[in-house]
């Protein structure tokens, strides 16, 4: 493999160590001489309060940053009026100050150079870097067409580069969150209800009487609104049922914890459907009014009894029946939570379909305590010319696969970046904004090959994440605390808009993504699409269109608008779902037409062999993927991950608490770094669990480097869902290596 784009492993970049602009964050050292009276930050004595919305995860809670008279961002708290956070940010949001003050932040644009055969980065001015990018893009467009530029994105910066590429003539825009995360559940629910559960999810947890979590670990997954509402539900006496091979935090608060054998979830779901139908517990009225395909469903689940499921899942039949009864008792105020990261075993759309079907026969969709209807306010597009129509787009990279993918599949775009004889639509340039592809995308070989074949790889990021080591140009973005951004207009129970404005000037040479996009766009002759000097103008115009003003939003931060549509189905109303027939599809004719099972069927998945344990990964409430592993405030809470090992397994292997081991997977891949052992009864003896996001191997992340283990490097077997291309990653098994393995050339 040609190493045209070598991974640049520079120890502590030491670049861009120019004088700090925008105020040093000196808050670390306690300076209060008398701790009984602290500076009043309620607006007097020089403190400023600036509205923003958080960017540490996608929930985008609205909040206020407090800036001291010296210009330091001291504290960030939630906006009391924001229904997404109710004035309380999660630990990531509260620790957002650490994102701003991180000493390892990208500081200046970087361009890859080769000196004496060694590849490295040199600092460049914005002029130079932007010219470089624009020229390369023009080159690619002239040789292969503008469609040959692709964008991988996550979070706010994506909007500006999507706009850039659309204006340029490409809509090859992919977010890993589709094929690597929520894609299967979105597809499964769309096929059933005609629409999915969105982000943030439209689950009415705070009013539910029964919350069923299957493969969802709310509480460790810190989606603020969900955790807050689950707590409210607990106070109101709601029953929680958790299906998880591990005693998750949610499982520990559940009335029923179903310690299921991993990979057998579909069997349980089918058994539940069976019990609800054959024990006459399902919501007859609802099904009669709003669903079709019931008789086929009934016939389909005839043999999927709890006893049958017991043999597969190791869950006792009484437990399956009791939990089903509990759901039925609560119906329609019951939620079988759709989950979020649903790319597990390759049959994930079908599993999500089963969850959707369960919700349907319990009648939760459109009822209080179930799934509500969201409403948002449409923010008008700032006037611009129409986008050109591209000659081909991401759909063409599917090559007939994944017929139900409604969004771009990252892996097919990566595939299309590898030149092959006869490859019609080739991608030659990537912009990567806000996502660390090296850690988030499985099928590493393919990713590496693709990156080596590109003519241009531009990375826009705030931190020197692993992906920056492969870029031709690194463009340093400023954090969310230092910029204006699009209005947040999430659709939820009530329409709201939230303003993000800079609390302080951007540090170092960093710039907001809207500026970067505009600068590149103008160099590409697309100035007409950026008919403004400062993004403030866009915001001011948009706010005026919807009955507000920039001045008002700077004062209040968040504005609510009254709902115009009902939030639930009015009792007995003739409601039409967004499916073709207007009814819920218990049996999916679409899937059948596509050559797939019309109703979910259980298929057994590969099991670990002796001495190997299933690699289960998840989240911790104080971190967001690999993004926060360097944030000093958050690593103070959790500096590294540990591998959860059942005590019986530990005894078998002679493992002690806090011992360091390396993990080796079924294909012989050994982890880069070692990981601490946590011996706990919370995990099954056939699995191990680690929190995702650690094991960074890029030295410029001076804190995160080498701490903990990276689960994605052990995910070499991927089960792709044929329905929409989701990459199932839970089919990997690891064993322990107790002594340090010989160093091999890694990545």
């Amino acid at each position, binding site marked *: 493999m040609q190493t045209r784009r070598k991974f640049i492993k520079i120890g502590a970049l030491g670049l861009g160590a120019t004088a700090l602009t925008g105020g040093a964050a000196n808050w670390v050292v306690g300076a209060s001489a008398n701790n009984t009276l602290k500076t009043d930050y309620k607006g007097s004595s020089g403190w400023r309060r600036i509205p923003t919305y958080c960017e540490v995860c996608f929930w985008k809670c609205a909040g206020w940053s407090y800036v001291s008279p010296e210009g330091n961002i001291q504290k960030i708290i939630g906006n009391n009026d924001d229904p997404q956070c109710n004035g309380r940010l999660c630990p990531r949001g509260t620790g957002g100050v650490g994102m701003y003050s991180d000493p390892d932040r990208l500081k200046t644009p970087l361009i890859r150079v080769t000196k004496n055969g060694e590849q490295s980065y040199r600092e460049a001015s914005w002029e130079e870097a932007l010219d470089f990018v624009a020229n390369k893009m023009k080159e690619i467009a002239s040789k292969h067409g503008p469609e040959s530029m692709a964008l991988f994105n996550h979070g706010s910066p994506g909007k500006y580069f999507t706009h850039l590429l659309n204006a340029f003539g490409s809509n090859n825009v992919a977010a890993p969150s589709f094929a690597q995360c929520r894609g299967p559940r979105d597809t499964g629910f769309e096929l059933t209800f005609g629409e999915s559960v969105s982000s943030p999810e439209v689950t009415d947890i705070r009013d539910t009487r029964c919350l069923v979590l299957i493969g969802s670990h709310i509480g460790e997954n810190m989606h603020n609104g969900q955790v807050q509402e689950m707590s409210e539900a607990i106070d109101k006496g709601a029953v929680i049922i958790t299906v998880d091979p591990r005693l998750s935090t949610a499982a520990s608060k559940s009335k029923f914890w179903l310690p299921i054998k991993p990979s057998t979830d579909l069997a349980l779901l089918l058994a539940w459907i069976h019990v609800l139908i054959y024990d006459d517990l399902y919501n007859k009225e609802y099904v009669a009014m709003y669903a079709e395909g019931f008789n086929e469903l009934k016939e389909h689940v005839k043999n999927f009894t709890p006893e049958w499921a017991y043999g597969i899942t190791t869950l006792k039949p009484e437990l399956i029946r009791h939990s089903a009864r509990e759901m039925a008792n609560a119906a329609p105020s019951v939620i079988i939570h759709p989950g979020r990261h649903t790319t597990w075993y390759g049959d994930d759309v079908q599993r999500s379909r089963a969850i959707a079907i369960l919700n349907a026969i319990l009648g939760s969709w459109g009822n209080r305590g179930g799934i509500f209807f969201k409403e948002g306010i449409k923010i008008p597009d700032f006037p611009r010319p129409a986008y050109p129509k591209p000659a081909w787009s991401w759909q063409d990279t599917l090559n007939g696969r994944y017929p139900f993918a409604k969004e771009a599949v990252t892996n097919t775009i990566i595939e299309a970046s590898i030149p092959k004889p006869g490859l019609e639509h080739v991608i030659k340039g990537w912009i990567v904004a806000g996502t660390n592809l090296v850690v988030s995308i499985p099928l590493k070989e393919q990713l590496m090959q693709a990156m080596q074949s590109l003519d241009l790889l531009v990375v826009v990021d705030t931190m020197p994440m692993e992906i920056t080591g492969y870029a031709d140009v690194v463009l340093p973005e400023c954090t969310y605390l230092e910029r204006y951004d699009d209005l947040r207009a999430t659709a939820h129970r009530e329409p709201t808009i939230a303003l993000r404005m800079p609390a302080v000037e951007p540090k170092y040479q960093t710039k907001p993504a809207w500026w970067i996009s505009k600068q590149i766009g103008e160099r590409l002759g697309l100035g007409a699409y950026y008919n403004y000097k400062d993004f403030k103008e866009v915001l001011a115009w948009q706010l005026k269109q919807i009955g507000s003003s920039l001045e008002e939003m700077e004062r209040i931060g968040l504005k609510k608008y009254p709902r115009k549509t009902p939030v639930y189905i009015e009792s007995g109303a003739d409601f039409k779902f967004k499916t073709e027939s207007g009814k819920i599809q218990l049996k999916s004719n679409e899937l059948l037409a596509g050559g797939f099972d019309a109703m979910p069927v259980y298929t057994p998945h590969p099991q670990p062999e002796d001495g190997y344990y299933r690699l289960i990964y998840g989240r911790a409430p104080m971190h967001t993927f690999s993004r926060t592993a360097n944030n000093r405030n958050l690593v103070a*809470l959790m500096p590294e991950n540990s591998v959860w090992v059942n*005590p019986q397994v530990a005894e078998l292997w002679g493992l002690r608490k806090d011992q360091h081991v390396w993990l080796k997977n079924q294909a012989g891949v050994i982890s880069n770094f070692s990981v601490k052992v*946590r011996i706990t009864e919370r995990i099954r003896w056939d699995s191990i669990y680690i929190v995702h996001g650690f094991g960074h191997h890029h030295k410029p992340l001076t804190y995160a480097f080498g701490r903990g283990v990276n689960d994605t490097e052990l995910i070499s077997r991927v089960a792709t869902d044929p329905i929409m291309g989701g990459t199932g990653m839970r089919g990997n098994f690891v064993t322990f290596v107790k002594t340090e393995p010989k160093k091999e050339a890694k990545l």
Partner: protein
Amino acid sequence: MKEELFVSGRNIPNIDPYLNIWHWEIPSYLFLGGLAAGILFFAGVFTIMGKEEKMAATVEKAPLFAPVALMLGLFLLFLDLKHKLWFWQLYTTIRLESPMGWGAWVLMIMTPISIIWSASYLTELFPNWDWKFKFLKDFEAWVIKNRVLIAWPMVLYAVILGIYTGILLSAFNARPLWNTSILGPLFLVSGMSTGAAVILLISKDHKERKIIGKIDILLIVIELFFITHLFMGYKAGSEAQIDAVNLFLGGSFTAPFFAFVVVLGLIFPVLLEVMELRGYKVPIVVPAILILLGGLIFRFLMVEAGQITRYLY
């Protein structure tokens, strides 16, 4: 299996994983305090009994070590403070409930008394010593005349000082290993024993050494008795205390404690002293040094182990 962990990554220096706020300064100070208390106790008692002539080393020479030990101890305490500039706040208030406060004030009284006592013997021990100033010579004369009068409070404060070194620890009921009232008397007896060891070391008078030796044997036996009861008390106490004493009965402190403190520091010296009384020739240096080292190591182990022990909840 019971598992306990910090979810929020707490790792405060000197607090996690085990408390270790007091380092070598505190046990050294406790040793020096006990040593000075022992020396001054014997000096005072024998003066009151009128035996100064016969117990010259006890009454005249050994007390020279006392002010040195006390001042060194005070200095070590000062070193241990982490907010040193404010140390004088100790003397702006009397807090009866604080053993630390007691310590500060008792030392305030003991140190001058020990200096005065030793100073009054300087002209005897060093014939060329000249006080130079008249008021000092007058003061010296007064002290020499009223030695017995001074000896009474000195004995009293010596006992308080000796017991206080133990009470200081036992007042912290948050540390199960220290939470026992036998520590006070134990440290007093141990301190007196170390004081006796010093006297044995420097005395040239065979008869004096015999008397002190006999007293020391008694003290060591009492000390062993106290230690036995200390352990019995822990074993019969709460789970936190059982856990605490297990550090010494099978845990990491077992070997150093039994080897250096009990065997080498107490049993072996007392056997040697008994043998000496029976007429065998034993170099007095050996048991004396062993007792001193044993006392020092004992305090080190108690302070370190005590901080490791904690309440279970």
